[in-house]
């Protein structure tokens, strides 16, 4: 078994520029930790980076399930909601529970729900599975609205996020919450990265590519599929905690609707399936691009049309661009990125 692993990682190493495959993410993380807090304003953190981090993490989670293990899911927002409400309730009801523990527990709750709704995947595939994960989407939202215990019997069902406090240190303000979210995202992304290059990750890919072949070479299909659902839901659940606690600072079931599930699915499709980087690139596009369009539209045409007309036309432009993009680059932003990098490298070498 270990022979295969070393073998594969050796080919991987020779494919990428060996050291740079670690160097690039390290530089990005260092930049995010050191430079960004120094130069960024509150708009950058509150409106761009925090939703970007939460959605990226959700994208990483869904990518494990859909990109690597090949199980289509439309229930991502439900797992985010499960995570957010679980963390809220652990934090509220268990006296003195540290925040880290309630985040981990919330991930476990989301994972458990993921396993339950992953069970149909043993029989169903493709569209049929996607439709059955819709059940998770509707059930979780319904349960959270129906039973007011989840929102601590708050009159309107909308609840406030607790303070982010770890070991006496309070992550207050936009920068604090950003660093908190960044840390969680970095840790989980690192673990996800390790996972997909491990034996389990290869089992995921084997099942995605040919389930019968995978079964024949001795991969436990049932266990592996449920594991994919569990790990993916865990990560998405924690992404829900970041969304609710660090970004919006409020939790309401309506915020985790089907649209959010689609949004996360689009992130991984546009970013690139079966790629950790893809989730980040996709999230960046989905978060930043509409904002840039809307600000540009307001700036150029804000005096001529009202905001409704502008918003409608932005949707049309955005939709058209996404279609165009997927035609030109069906493998997602990751493929585009790699191609650009190769060309730049070539240009640099030839000069």
């Amino acid at each position, binding site marked *: 078994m270990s022979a295969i692993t070393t073998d594969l990682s050796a080919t991987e190493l020779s494919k990428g520029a060996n050291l740079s495959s670690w160097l690039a993410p390290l530089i990005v993380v260092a930049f995010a930790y050191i430079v960004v807090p120094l130069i960024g304003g509150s708009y950058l953190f509150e409106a761009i980076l925090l939703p970007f981090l939460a959605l990226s993490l959700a994208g990483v989670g869904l990518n494990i399930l859909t990109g690597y293990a090949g199980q289509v899911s439309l229930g991502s927002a439900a797992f985010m909601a499960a995570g957010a409400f679980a963390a809220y309730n652990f934090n509220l009801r268990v006296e003195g529970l540290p925040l880290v523990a309630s985040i981990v527990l919330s991930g476990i709750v989301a994972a458990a729900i993921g396993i339950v709704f992953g069970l149909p995947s043993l029989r169903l595939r493709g569209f049929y599975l996607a439709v059955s994960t819709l059940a998770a989407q509707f059930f979780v939202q319904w349960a959270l609205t129906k039973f007011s215990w989840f929102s601590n019997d708050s009159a309107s069902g909308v609840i406030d996020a607790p303070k982010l406090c770890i070991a006496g240190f309070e992550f207050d303000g936009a920068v604090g919450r950003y660093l908190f979210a960044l840390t969680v995202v970095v840790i989980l992304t690192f673990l996800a990265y390790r996972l997909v290059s491990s034996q389990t990750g290869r089992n995921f890919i084997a099942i995605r590519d040919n389930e019968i072949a995978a079964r024949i070479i001795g991969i436990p299909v049932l266990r592996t599929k449920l594991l994919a659902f569990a790990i993916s839901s865990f990560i998405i659940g924690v992404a829900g905690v970041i969304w609710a606690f660090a970004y919006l600072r409020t939790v309401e079931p309506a915020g985790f609707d089907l649209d959010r599930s689609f949004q996360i699915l689009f992130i991984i499709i546009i970013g690139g399936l079966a790629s950790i980087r893809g989730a980040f690139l996709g999230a960046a596009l989905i978060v930043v691009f509409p904002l840039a*369009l809307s600000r540009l539209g307001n700036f150029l045409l804000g005096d001529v049309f009202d905001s409704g007309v502008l918003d409608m036309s932005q949707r049309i432009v955005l939709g058209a661009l996404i279609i165009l993009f997927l035609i030109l680059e069906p493998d997602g932003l990751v493929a585009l990125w790699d191609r650009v990098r190769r060309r730049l490298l070539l240009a640099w070498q030839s000069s």
Partner: protein
Amino acid sequence: MSFFTTVKAVALSAALAVSVALPAAHADEQYFPLQSYRVGPYAAGGTGFFGGFIDYLNLINIRDGGVNGVKLTWDECETQYEVERGVECYERQKSHAGAAAWNPLSVGIAYAMIDRITADKVPLITVNHGRTDSTDGRVFPYVFPLLLNPYSETSGIVNYIAAKEGGIDKLKGKKIVVLYHGSPYGKETIPIYELLAQKYGFTVQQIEVPHPGNEQQSQWLTIRRAKPDFVVLRGWGVMNPVALKTAVKVGYPVDHIVGNVWSNSEEDVIPAGDAAKGYTAITTQASGNSYPVVQEIVKTVYGAGKGNLEDKSRIGSVYHNLGIVNGILNVEAIRIAQEKFGHRTLTGDEVRWGFEHLKLDPAKVEALGAKDLFHSINVSWDNHEGEGYVTFQQWDGKKWNVVSDWIAPDWALLRPIIEKSAEAYAAEKGIKLRTAADADAVAVTN
């Protein structure tokens, strides 16, 4: 590759736009950040409300040259009623100098903003909605559920039914069904109906309609079996016309259905057609365009081609008039604050002080050209709702007709419940209760 260049070009121009988009603040301007929604499922409410609000701000600018010479400015940011878009708009618009108050007209967005506006010291107005306990100004210094919070609305409806039956003691033994929208908004009043039922001796049965509410056959069959004396419709959007149509189908008399404040617009009854004839609903502001202030808007603003509503037949509709009333409340708060702090651009905290002294008695309301449009308001540092009165309108198939006097909700009964809830919130968040002296200390810089 060409696609990549396009993306780059767009990104670059966007970055340019961002860097030059915000003009320097003018010394004599007061700015309203409008987190409006003109597309999406609730566009009918959004266009009407923000249309009325902008029309009134325009009226003040055109007719009076602003508030004591301070020009009112605003810009719109589309939220589609979605929380994260509202937050983005907040972050985008807050860098603009001279912000007076936020008016998102969305419970979800308002919740997400409470921490933020409290830190920034700018008032947040949730006219006719919002969280009930934000009425308590000791705990929520910057949040104002002006005119009517959900509990007052409930009390107003029960008082109206009592008046129709011939007195509060006649409620004993009566049966009321509340048909509510299956959402946080719809559920907010469940405990208060139970409490009022106990207090006045009527029985209440509360039935949920799952969102969005376009199928209500089973709920109305239950209602037919229960034979209630009144049905309170606590709906939203498509649920309202469907409820009225289904009521006719099962044979429940429509004039015994009372709508709440988000089931009271033209958009709720027109789609129901004849089924809505005789339906009554609560409102804080009467509809119609006969009021002097609405007439002035028609003449001055729409006459100058600056009207905000595309469909002029909506002038004077329920949502449009709510926007106008909201405009009056915001502008008068600024005016009151200006008398204390000077005729200049005010800070958010100074405007907050203005809202906390927003007292418009019926005479003042008449002077503003809004007699009978709304009754009065009396906000104080610890009562951020301001004791708004309600009235009831009946739909005759073409327009709403006022069928009641101005009715006062039972504030004395509600206040202890609100205080208890607010104090629990304060304890949970570690907020120190504000005193009258704290309320008078005003930050002069934002």
